[in-house]
Structures are given as structure tokens and as C-alpha cells.
């Protein structure tokens, strides 16, 4: 398969003022922008940190562009809902980049209730030589001004400025789990447990409700929305997943309210694997369209599945992420791990899929060769420039030297958030409060 990633771990580490071992720093979302030049992370404390890839240096051709911190800002603050006497968490649930349309970069960040549009601009020049002001900005004594000069722009140290351009508030009663920018670059959608709203990027005081699955009687509630995404090319199509494991593809041109799906993707329950926990483990935690727009990738508790948009009856591919947990579901239900929501990702050519697991492991599946690998994101096993060693979980029987047994897996070390560079073999892995960026130097072209 050739995916021998060489690692350059970039934990938010020593010397950086924001690294503290506090719960506020748990990374809650990771997202590359459309070119892969920028990587944004959101954390539990409401902060967004943006990394930028340094241009490749001719002096050191071996060090392909590495990511350094570009900007840090506080996106959301904790709020208090006075009506319900509830605190609204500042944790950033999702970040989505807008396609770049000018020199500035823009992104949407959201917590449980409010979405914000941030504009990121650079300033690397400043005017000097004012007639009425001196170097420090103080007004000059006019009698000292004997001639006029034209102010000139002089270079200065790069300054990155971030400003909130829009705040989309009061659109959601329930907790926002997804946002997705439309390919039309004018609208985006936000989804909570029961509803999906369509917004225009320039209009903050209203949104259109396009999906509403709230029953008339809450006691009839049996299903919630878990994730949603716009189709990458068709601006009228979007998909949303449910806690019962189904996917609904909706067409906004068919009706103003898309409660009726155009297509329903659902795999019948496997009778041999049926248990009390069948529904919980079938709950889809993430859905992603392929770059081609032809497939969808879903993650449920034990598997990742590839669906063909033209086939609703069942996925075309199913990959076991950690099937050894199937016999442990009861314990995982007890400690609530069975409710963990893992994300999934495609590589740029849609040939490899990736998702996280426990014990700081993450898994990659090559769709062409059908080979898979388990890798670990940790400081101990990831020295700079080291090659990541494949890991193995043994379930009893023959055990090799470096195998980890199922019972010694650390369920508190979960990799929920991962992202893949849109074009190259660079991945970003969030392991609790550390961010790892791995680059594949050996095979930098897509295969």
C-alpha cells in the first residue's frame, strides 16, 4: 500500500502560551481549507487556532512545508440562556472554511447554538510619511510642516487580523451538530438534533427551515439527526444521517420543506448480529461526500461504510474499524463509550478512507487494495521524522511482541476528529488536547 507516513508531530507544545493541561484545550474539531494551506482547529474553550503551511524552502528541500501557527482567536464565549437557566457551552463543534474569493480567508465556526463567520486578513504593509501625523501618530504642529509628501507603503511584520463578520444566532433550539457550506458559495446549512436550517451567508436575521423531524408529541421521538452535508457539486442536494443508521438524500428543488427524502439509504439489520445495542451501534456519527460527489462515507460505532448514491439498499463497501469491541458492547454501554462520535475522512483521490479509534489509534483503509493499517498518535511513538509503525490489536490466540491486547486499550484516549489534506498525503489527527500532523514524504502523489 505504501502508506508509510513519516511523522512530524506538532503537539501544541512547549513555549506556546496556550498549552495547558486543562479540559478547555481538548480539540473538538479539525478542518483543512480548500487548498490545504491552512488548517483550523477548534477546542472546548471556544478558541480557534489556525496553522499555515510554510512554503517549501529551497535551502532545505527535505523539509516539505510544515505547519506553524498562523492565528489564534477566541471564537465563542460561554453564554447563559436566562430563559432556560442554562449555560451554553463555548466548545466549537464544527469549523468549515468558505472557498476563498479574495485575499482574505473566511470560515464558519459554531458552538451548540450560534454560528459565526470570521474573516482572516493579513496586513504586511503600512503607510508612512503622513503630513499631519508624526511617526507615533501624534498630530504635528502645523507650523513645522514646510512641504507636502505623499505617504508611501512600507513593509512591516506580518500581522494577521481576525474579525467576526456575521453572527447567526437564535436559529436552533437544539444542539447544532453540523454545518456545511453550499457549492453555490452563497448559502450554508446548520443542523441540530431535530431541524436543519438554510442560511444565506450575508443574512443573519432569518433562515429557512428545510428539515424538521420533531414529532408533534415529544413522547413519540425515536430518532434524531446526527450529521448533514451538502453535495460538493450539486447545490440542491444534501444528505443527513440519523441515530437509527439511515441516510436521507434530499433535493431542495423538489420542495421547500425537505422532510420527504429523495433517497433513503439504509442497510437492513444483520439478524446474526442482533443485540440490545444494535440500534446504538448503527447510529451514524459522521457522513462525508467523496470529492467526486459519487459516494458517501459514513461512520457508525464499529464500521465505516461507503455508499454509492445510486444504490440505496446497502453500502457498497464496509470496513471493520474495531470489531473486537463487538463482544464488549455491554461494558461500553455502561461507561458510555458506546455513544462516542467518531468522524471519518476521504483522501484527495477518494481511494483511502480514515477514521479514529481508541488508545489513540487511527485506521486507514485503501479501497483499491483492500489493505488497512492501524497507526498510533502519541508522543512516545512519534519522534520527529520517524516513520509510524503499524499497530495491531490482538484478541487472544497468538500474540506478537508489540501487539496490544483488547483489555489494555485505553478508552479515554479516543481519536474522534481527523482531517485529510484535500490534495496531498497530509493528515491532521486530534488526540485529546494534542494535534498531530503526519506527512507522507515517500509517496507524495495520490495513488
Amino acid at each position, binding site marked *: 500500500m505504501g502508506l508509510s507516513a513519516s511523522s512530524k508531530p506538532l503537539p501544541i507544545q512547549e513555549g506556546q502560551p496556550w498549552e495547558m493541561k486543562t479540559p478547555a484545550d481538548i480539540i473538538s474539531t479539525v478542518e483543512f481549507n480548500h487548498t490545504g494551506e491552512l488548517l483550523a482547529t477548534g477546542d472546548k474553550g471556544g478558541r480557534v487556532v489556525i496553522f499555515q503551511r510554510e512554503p517549501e524552502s529551497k535551502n532545505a528541500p527535505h523539509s516539505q512545508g510544515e505547519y506553524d501557527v498562523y492565528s489564534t482567536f477566541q471564537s465563542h464565549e460561554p453564554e447563559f440562556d436566562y*430563559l432556560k437557566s442554562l449555560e451554553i457551552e463555548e466548545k466549537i463543534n464544527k469549523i468549515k472554511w468558505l472557498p476563498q474569493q479574495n485575499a482574505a480567508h473566511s470560515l464558519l465556526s459554531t458552538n451548540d447554538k450560534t454560528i459565526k463567520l470570521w474573516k482572516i486578513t493579513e496586513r504586511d504593509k503600512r503607510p508612512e510619511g503622513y503630513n499631519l501625523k508624526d511617526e507615533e501618530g501624534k498630530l504635528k504642529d502645523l507650523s513645522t510642516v514646510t512641504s507636502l509628501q505623499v505617504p508611501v507603503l512600507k513593509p512591516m511584520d506580518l500581522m494577521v487580523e481576525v474579525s467576526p463578520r456575521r453572527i447567526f444566532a437564535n436559529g436552533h433550539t437544539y444542539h447544532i451538530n453540523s454545518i456545511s457550506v453550499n457549492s453555490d458559495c452563497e448559502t450554508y446549512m446548520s443542523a441540530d438534533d431535530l431541524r436543519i*436550517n438554510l442560511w444565506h451567508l450575508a443574512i443573519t436575521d432569518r433562515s429557512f427551515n428545510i428539515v424538521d423531524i420533531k*414529532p408533534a408529541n415529544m413522547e413519540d421521538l*425515536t430518532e*434524531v439527526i446526527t450529521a448533514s452535508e451538502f453535495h460538493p457539486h450539486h447545490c440542491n442536494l444534501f444528505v443527513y444521517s440519523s441515530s437509527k443508521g439511515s441516510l436521507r438524500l434530499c433535493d431542495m428543488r423538489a420542495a421547500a420543506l425537505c422532510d420527504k427524502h429523495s433517497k433513503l439509504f439504509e442497510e437492513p439489520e444483520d439478524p446474526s448480529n442482533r443485540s440490545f445495542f444494535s440500534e446504538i451501534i448503527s447510529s451514524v456519527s459522521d457522513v462525508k461526500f467523496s470529492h467526486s460527489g459519487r459516494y458517501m462515507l459514513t461512520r457508525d460505532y464499529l464500521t465505516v461504510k461507503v455508499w454509492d448514491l445510486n444504490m440505496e439498499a446497502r453500502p457498497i463497501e464496509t470496513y471493520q474499524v474495531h470489531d473486537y469491541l463487538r463482544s464488549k458492547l*455491554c*461494558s*461500553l454501554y*455502561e461507561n458510555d463509550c458506546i455513544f462516542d462520535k467518531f468522524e471519518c475522512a476521504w483522501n484527495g483521490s477518494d481511494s483511502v478512507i480514515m477514521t479514529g479509534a481508541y488508545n489513540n489509534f487511527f485506521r486507514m483503509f485503501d479501497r483499491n487494495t483492500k489493505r488497512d493499517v492501524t497507526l498510533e498518535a502519541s508522543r512516545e511513538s512519534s519522534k520527529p521524522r520517524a516513520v509510524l509503525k503499524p499497530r495491531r490489536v490482538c484478541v487472544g490466540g497468538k500474540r506478537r511482541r508489540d501487539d496490544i491486547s483488547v483489555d489494555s486499550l485505553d478508552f479515554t484516549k479516543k481519536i474522534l476528529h481527523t482531517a485529510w489534506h484535500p490534495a496531498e498525503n497530509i493528515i491532521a489527527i486530534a488526540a485529546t488536547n494534542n494535534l498531530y500532523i503526519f506527512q507522507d514524504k515517500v509517496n507524495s502523489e495520490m495513488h
Partner: protein
Amino acid sequence: MLSKGLKRKREEEEEKESLAVDALWLDPGHAAVAQAPPAAASSSLFDLSVLKLHHSLQQSEPDLRHLVLVVNTLRRIQASMAPAAALPPVPSPPAAPSMADNLLASSDAALSASMASLLEDLSHIEGLSQAPQPLADEGPPGRSMGGAAPSLGALDLLGPATGCLLDDGLEGLFEDIDTSMYDNELWAPASEGLKPGPEDEPGKEEAPELDEAELDYLMDVLVGTQALERPPGPGR
């Protein structure tokens, strides 16, 4: 006031509340459940699920996905326990089928009623916030937002219900209370006029079905109660 007035609890405090189950939860390799005979395993899973449901609903803002999944799992477990009674204190001798059916029915009803009332209460709390949200919550005109109108009777059940979910005398507790005043159909037209919010569709749908006599009764009730108290807007 109807809100619980609680800040979102820290995880340590949440764990203290489930003292009895702490050891169970923290032991990932808990063998007892796996080795127990199926009936006992179902029963302990049932208890665990009830505890989780209770725990989830006690939070000021429950995670809806977690709640729904636990409730559905609970229903599955309960369905599989059909031959045996779900209520611990009730002995389950191999009684006549009708007796077993009655027990099942009453436990079903009690559990359903409890879960229903708890979910209803949840919707009421959610509904409180819907009134002041002006434009953003609107859908295409004329479409019901499906907001569940509050059932104030459910709030009375909140206390005892969470304490004794398995008590099949639940209905009996409130037999002597006349809850007809709190039926939401009666209130809907009133709240319509007082607070024009996005939740007015259910009211509109029900109003045409009231005949004149009921309308008169309504007016009397409203005039009578409005003299007693002025709620700040019975938001739904």
C-alpha cells in the same frame, strides 16, 4: 418558575449521583453481566438503562441523541423481558396468561407513561425557549412547526415519576386532581392572542373544532383565571 435553575453540572458531580452504579461503570471488564443468566442480564441491563435515562433527564439540558438511544434500548430490553414481569417487587409465578398480561400491560403503561411524561416535560422546557425566538425558527408559512404544547400536568409527575419509574400506582396518585383545566387544547387559543410566536399553528388547527358551547366555556375560564394571575406569556 418552571426551569430547574441548574447550571450544567460538571462530570465529577454527575458521577456522585449514581453512587450505586459507580463501581459497575468504571470497570470496563465487568464480568458479572456477561456471565449472568440471560434473564438476570436483561434485568440488570434494564436497571442500568433506567438509571441512565433518569440521569440523562436530570441534566438541565439533556443530550437528545443519548436520551433517544437509551429510551429505544430500554424499550428493546423491555420487549425481550415480556414473559417475566418488569417490576422487581412483583413476584412472577407461572401465573395464568391473563395475569401475566395484566402485569405486563400495567408495567408497560407505567413505564410508557413515565417516559412519556418525562419526554413531555423535556419538550415543555424546550418549548419555553421557542416563544422569544422571533424569525429564525419560522418555516414556510402555514406549516406546523410541530412544537409540542406544554402539558402542565406532566410537571406534577416530574417529582414522583423520576423517583419511582416502576411504580405502577402512578396513575392512581393523581386520580383526585382535576387536570382538565390544564389540557392544552383549552389554552391554545388564549396563548395565541397573548403571544404570537412561531408556535401558533397547533392552536389554529385545533380551534376550528371547538364548538360554540366550548368556546363560551373557554371564555369563562379565561376571564376567571386571568383575574387570578397574569402569566408573563405562557410560552410554549
